[in-house]
């Protein structure tokens, strides 16, 4: 059972100290992560691992394996296939008719975690007969979750929990049609895996690596403060082809005036945007 609490919680100065330490030793910069959420993640780690503030600093410096775990906890990896079915419906009706006019469709799934969203897109592209000319790049900062994404094998229990989402997208059949089920595991069909590539990319420190017709980055911005969000919006803008699409999470709106001029709203509710201007 998950409870939100622990007896001991970190103070803001202690959190700042941890952020500095992690930046110096591991090169990951969490200084512009949303504060309340970051505190919750760190409190959760010290609770689960029964660490004091000093223990935490010690293992962060001396135990590389612990840092991987830390990174996994901090960068929330909770994801679903077809999360927000109405988003996939909107892609199908408002975006894919335009995407289908391109000779090649390159999709960047930024912050892809264990790959559920990338494979949801792969299924949707396949159902629209677009998979032959499309390629999905999934990136994340976390190497462990990328290994899971590459495998494309999920527990049957998880896949079943996505069945309702799938149903609401209006796609034909059921979600298990896209998987080979063995015992209690489900492996995504190889034809869906074929046109995917998962690799490490850090949105905070890495730069443009290709030109895309569509970028999805859903429920990643919620962990970033607004200045950082804008720097990453700029990275996405520069990574999109003219009139390329940007899809943010359901509750992630482009607020800055300068970027509102650079992106046209395609679907307000689903936060689907199109690159405009020079």
């Amino acid at each position, binding site marked *: 059972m998950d409870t*939100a609490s622990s007896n001991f919680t970190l103070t803001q100065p202690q959190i700042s100290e941890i952020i500095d330490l992690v930046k110096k030793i591991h090169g990951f910069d969490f200084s512009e992560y*949303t504060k*309340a*959420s970051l505190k919750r993640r760190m409190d959760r780690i010290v609770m689960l691992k029964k660490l004091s503030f000093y223990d935490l600093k010690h293992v962060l410096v001396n135990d590389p394996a612990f840092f991987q775990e830390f990174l996994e906890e901090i960068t*929330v990896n909770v994801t679903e296939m077809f*999360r*927000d079915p109405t988003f996939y419906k909107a892609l199908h009706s408002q975006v894919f008719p335009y995407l289908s006019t391109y000779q090649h469709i390159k999709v960047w799934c930024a912050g892809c975690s264990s790959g559920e969203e990338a494979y949801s897109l792969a299924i949707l592209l396949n159902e629209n007969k677009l998979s032959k000319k499309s390629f999905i790049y999934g990136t994340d900062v976390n190497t462990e979750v990328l290994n899971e994404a590459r495998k494309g094998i999920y527990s049957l229990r998880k896949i079943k929990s996505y069945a309702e989402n799938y149903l609401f997208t209006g796609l034909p059949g059921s979600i298990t049609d896209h998987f080979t089920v063995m015992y209690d595991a489900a492996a995504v069909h190889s034809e869906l895996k074929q046109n995917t590539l998962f690799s490490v990319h850090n949105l905070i420190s890495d730069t443009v690596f290709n030109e895309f017709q569509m970028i999805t980055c859903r429920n990643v911005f919620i962990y970033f403060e607004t200045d950082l969000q804008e720097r990453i919006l700029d990275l996405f803008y520069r990574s999109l082809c003219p009139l390329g699409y940007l899809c943010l999470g359901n509750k992630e709106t482009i*607020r800055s005036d300068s970027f509102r001029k650079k992106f046209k709203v395609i679907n307000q509710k689903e936060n689907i945007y199109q690159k405009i201007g020079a």
Partner: protein
Amino acid sequence: MVKSFPHDLNKTVVIVMHRKKNFFSEIEKLFAENSRMLLREVSDKEKIEGNAIYIAPANYHTLIESDGLFSLDVSEAVWYSKPSIDVTFESAAEVYKQSCTAILFSGANQDGAEGLLKLRNCGALTIAQSPVDAEMAEMPQSAIDREAAGYVLSNNEIFELIQSSIS
């Protein structure tokens, strides 16, 4: 309750309800139609207005930032709930401390009790709905058991308290 708030309440109200994802209830519409205040669902990094009612969206936790913004979080459910009342209460305790009032109503699990205790410990006014009045007694009852509620009030008393704090 929403109906009873005047247009110039001059307070921020956050409503966290346990709700199912993919279930497009009409509850916001119903609330909005009955509210004289600005009422909307929270979106990420939205500025917290001083005179407005906010509803926590389904399938996210709603947190309060020290710089006057809401933030959202999709991390694991707490007490099988997302939104979790504990998460919002705890982040409100961090930021608003004694200057906020929290009321825990009916519900079928223990969500909210821990957060209410944190709020009480930092001097906030904390109220649990009387379990007799609650459709599901467990939620207010677990707060009472943990001594998280400064007051245990009937529906009428809660209503009167709100009215008196307005006038």
